[in-house]
């Protein structure tokens, strides 16, 4: 049986298998069709219906279940929904167990949330360091703001204030007003 306890392990393995079988396009389709439109249809419906309050309901619940020791922080206002991951539960699982079958596991988050939020009318500013730390800001498409200065939205819980947050931009994957996992800034 495929279990949920080590889900992140076989999920990550699946990305590598799909890429070998059908190339990058099949991986992208998997994130959008299987995860966004099927597995996470409850999140999709909630956020399309309620916007930022729906994001709070979805991520508030799911992150607490996946990361009961609170390796994350959620901040929200009427205009922006922000998550800071200080200890990503799924990337952390892979790192602790030495699992790597796909070149960038972190891409899967933008792979399914990007299209999901795009369908709900939102865009994403995001950076991840591949080591279990990242941040996300979600705003209505066409509104100002984005890549808010460190600490200005999440205060001291902004992951970019960590001493180990990379100073070298080349060590970060960075997105601006994005909905596409391949829209990384150069």
């Amino acid at each position, binding site marked *: *049986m*495929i*279990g*949920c*306890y*080590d*889900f992140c*392990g*076989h*999920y990550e*393995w*699946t990305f590598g*298998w799909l890429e070998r*079988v*059908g190339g990058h396009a*099949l991986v992208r*389709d*998997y994130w959008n*069709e*299987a*995860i966004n439109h*099927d*597995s*996470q249809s*409850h999140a999709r419906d909630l956020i399309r219906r309620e916007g930022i309050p729906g994001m709070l309901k979805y991520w508030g619940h*799911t992150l607490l*279940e*996946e990361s*009961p*020791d609170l390796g994350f922080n959620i901040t929200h206002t009427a205009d922006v929904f922000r998550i800071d991951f200080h200890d990503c539960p799924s990337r*952390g*699982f892979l790192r*602790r*167990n*030495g*699992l790597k*079958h796909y070149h960038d596991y972190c891409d899967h988050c933008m792979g399914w949330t990007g299209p999901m939020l795009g369908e709900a009318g939102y865009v994403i500013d995001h950076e991840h360091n591949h080591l279990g730390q990242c941040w996300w800001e979600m705003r209505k498409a066409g509104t100002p703001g984005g890549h808010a200065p460190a600490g200005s939205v999440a205060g001291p819980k902004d992951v970019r204030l960590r001493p180990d947050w990379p100073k070298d931009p080349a060590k970060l994957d960075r997105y601006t007003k994005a909905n596409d996992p391949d829209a990384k800034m150069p």
Partner: protein
Amino acid sequence: MSAPASSPLPHVDTKPQGSADFYYAVNATFRFLLQRLGPDGWRRYLEELGRGYFEPVNRQWSQGGLPAVARYWRAFFAAEPGAVVDVVEHPDRVEVQVRECPAIKHLRAGGREIVGEYCQHCYFLGAARAEAAGLTLRLSGGSGSCCHTYARRETGLAPQDLREIKEARS
């Protein structure tokens, strides 16, 4: 970090049980693979997953035999929320008696459309893992409760009849 020596699970987490909503993703993955690659592609995925991702478990089983199989499944289902399972050891086989499948239970509770072939995944995946460990697997039942029987190859279990595996119903 590798799994602690006390755990039969090759990959361990910091929390005692997984998040049941991940069963939604497993079900969705099967649907996607069946639609895109057909039954043969889905089966190939499961067999390669069984030989590849689960290689550390297969090695444990190969080295530890049926007692290692029993230890693994007890630890596995202890980490799956909602599972009601008995693992029964016989001299020539191990029976994993799944009284309440945690995946089917959660998919139903969430109102999800369950892939009809869902329960076959346990056979295709498990048979590939068993074969890699010098064992055989037979499966009967499904759609919420079933029995997996692991035995040494020389035990000579009757061939698997896929009709013994029920279609999963939502």
